[in-house]
């Protein structure tokens, strides 16, 4: 049958180490890439690119950043939005102050700055653990926001502290159209996810999981705890920084420090909790839940016939209640996140139509 996985055995170490060991995974991934890179740009509309796909991709990437730190290395963080802000502002300043620097390098540079700041705020993780670590990352959240508001140098003297994106030109090709911005975002997000998929199966990824599961045991096994933790902070900061740069440049086209406040950090945290900690697919599922569901609800309510009996404001509040209810429902049905739900579906499909 189409989804029979039995009998696909690896006969060499090389085969064992393939990114997608199962034929189904391989084919599905190929189809997905084709859909995302070819079919969607062909069929999609401005609305889909600008309002749905780009924020969905960027928030998935931000979820990945936090997931590496929290889901894989077990370090709690509430500073995700701050590191996104560092990425966005660093990219902007690199573009501005180093003329002729290609856009892609500015974005990578933004990621590196974010990684550096993330490592600095990750230093306390050498001494404190768990919930107490939140305090350090929370400090990052407030400090960095204050920094960008206070010193107008970061926003090139703009009195209101708002920065706007430079023209998105790369190798002579203008990416400013909705499709262009979507493809640019998609390429960066897809390549970072591929890197992350490799990373979590590498020695470093396994170190992270060992530290997450019990750091004392990991230390006894000879894993350098501090280095592992700081690398997790650095990698997480790097990805968050790039997500921030994309958020500012390919999605909104403008950004103010206030756009990266604590609410955004919580949003990213919810993405990985709902999507699934320690899962790459979970980032997409969580981001879809957080980004798409409210839009869907608001669209559905928009379909209701207009009337004077129900106040529009109350309908909006009802939407929030439904959304909250759905979050509770999903977390009760599947505390490990949507990714686990998907996994269970696959397990059932594997033995279908038999029950066991």
């Amino acid at each position, binding site marked *: 049958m189409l989804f029979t996985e039995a009998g696909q055995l690896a006969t060499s170490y090389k085969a064992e180490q393939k990114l997608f060991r199962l034929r189904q995974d391989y084919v599905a991934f190929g189809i997905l890439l084709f859909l995302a890179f070819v079919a969607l740009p062909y069929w999609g509309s401005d609305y*889909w690119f*600008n309002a749905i796909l780009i924020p969905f991709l960027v928030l998935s990437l931000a979820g990945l950043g936090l997931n590496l730190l929290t889901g894989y290395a077990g370090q709690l963080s509430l500073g995700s939005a701050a590191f996104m802000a560092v990425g966005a502002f660093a990219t902007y300043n690199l573009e501005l102050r180093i003329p002729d620097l290609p856009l892609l390098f500015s974005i990578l540079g933004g990621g590196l700055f974010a990684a550096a700041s993330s490592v600095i705020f990750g230093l306390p993780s050498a001494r404190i653990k768990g919930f107490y670590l939140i305090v350090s990352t929370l400090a990052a959240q407030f400090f960095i926001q204050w920094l960008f508001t206070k010193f107008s140098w970061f926003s090139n003297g703009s*009195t209101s502290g708002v920065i*706007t994106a430079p023209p998105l030109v790369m190798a002579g090709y203008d990416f400013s159209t909705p499709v262009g911005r979507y493809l640019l975002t998609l390429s960066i997000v897809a390549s970072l996810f591929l890197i992350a998929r490799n990373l979590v199966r590498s020695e470093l990824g396994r170190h992270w999981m060992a530290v997450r599961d019990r750091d004392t045991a990991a230390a006894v096994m000879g894993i350098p705890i501090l280095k592992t933790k700081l690398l997790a902070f650095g990698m997480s900061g790097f990805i968050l920084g790039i997500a921030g740069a994309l958020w500012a440049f390919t999605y*909104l086209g403008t950004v*103010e420090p206030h756009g990266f406040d604590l609410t955004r950090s919580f949003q990213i945290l919810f993405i990985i909790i709902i999507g699934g900690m320690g899962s790459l697919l979970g980032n997409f599922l969580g981001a879809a839940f957080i980004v798409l569901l409210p839009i*869907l609800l608001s669209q559905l309510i*928009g379909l209701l016939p207009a009337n004077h009996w129900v*106040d529009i*404001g109350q309908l909006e509040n009802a939407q929030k209640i439904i959304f909250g209810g759905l979050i509770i429902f999903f977390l009760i049905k599947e505390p490990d996140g949507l990714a686990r739900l998907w996994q269970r579906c696959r397990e059932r499909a594997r033995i279908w139509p038999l029950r066991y």
Partner: protein
Amino acid sequence: MQQRFKTLSALAAAVISSTLTVNTAQAGSNEQYFPLQSYRIGPYAAGGTGFFGGFIDYLQNVNAKGGVNGVKLTWSECETEYIVEKGVECYERLKTGLNGAPAAATNPLSVGIAYATLERSTNDKLPLITINHGRTDSTDGSVFPYVFPLQLNPYSEVSAIINYIAQQAGGLDKLKGKKIVTLYHGSPYGQETNPIIDLLAKKYGFESTTIEVPHPGNEQQSQWLNIRRIQPDWVILRGWGVMNPVALKTAQKTGFPVDHIIGNIWSNSEEDAAPAGDAAKGFISITTHPSGTAFPVLQEIKKTVVDAGTTNLSDPKRFGTVYYNLGVVNGILNVEAVRLAQEKFGKTPLTGEQVQWGFEHLNIDDARLKDLGAEGLLQKLKLSCSDHEGGGAVRFQQWDGTQWKVISDWVQADRALLRPIIEESAQKYAKEKGITPRDCSKEL
């Protein structure tokens, strides 16, 4: 299990169909559409419900009189909660029009959303109206063809306040040696005017101090003690939301005379003064649109909309308040732009590009104000390719404990002084973005 798949696929189908319906538009209806990025919930709901209530009621009033030259106005709302991403989503959702009626202009009433949709508006050729707020340098229409900070941009606002203080003192030369403190909200909006007040201080020789109140501003003891130490002649309150009543209460506690506090354009509503109770009595603020129901246009709305029971306000008592009247003023300006553009392009529904022409050539003089029944509610306004602001005048009003009383005639900002700063900033933006400014001498 199968049941679950069924529900899931039904849900997915609903997503796709509901989002697609938005983008399908049939041609041929004789209607002009206003996409409303409104906010009726969240911390700024008081402003949103009032403004969009007034806006919608004015549109209803126009429809009741047969529309604009027979073209009916239509609108739909999308809730932004004043959140930038939601505003962008709403913009993208609504920009294509409704059932074939093309969109005329967007009015987000939010600085953040305006910044985020500024470039999109330009690309989509859809005017972006930021009445009394927005990006100051978008006044220069040669760089920002589709952005209109109508009536009053933040720089003009400060300049007008300083001119009023000079008037009270008996002339601009009397400003020398005066002490003026600006108490501002710790946000991009709050900071925007600090360089300008410093510039004016240098020019006129008064002493300026700027003091920040961190968002949201419900604790201001230390700031007001600081003000008491400085003993300024005037305090300019650049507040937002809860910060305003708290400022007034704290001023009373620290013994600063409330009638020497001047609220700016977002500290001027009933919702800003009333919660402070007695402490607000005597508080002065600027306004471009006095509250009250005596204006003929409001009486007309009362007759055709409010008395007919179709008002958009959930609490009809708010009829004629500051935010409501701002919505009415905004409605007048939008409809006038459409009307003007119709004279050039024909009496049919117009595209955003055509309405932009209408905005750019708006010229509301005394005679037109009288026709509209908006004398005293709206100032004279003349826009052009290079000037997207037009007015730059404000009136001053004082809170008497229950309502606002207008206490001055129109006070004009020193726009000639501000113009070079605005142009410089616009040029910088144009250079950063690689925009070639239009040559306004060639525009008709």
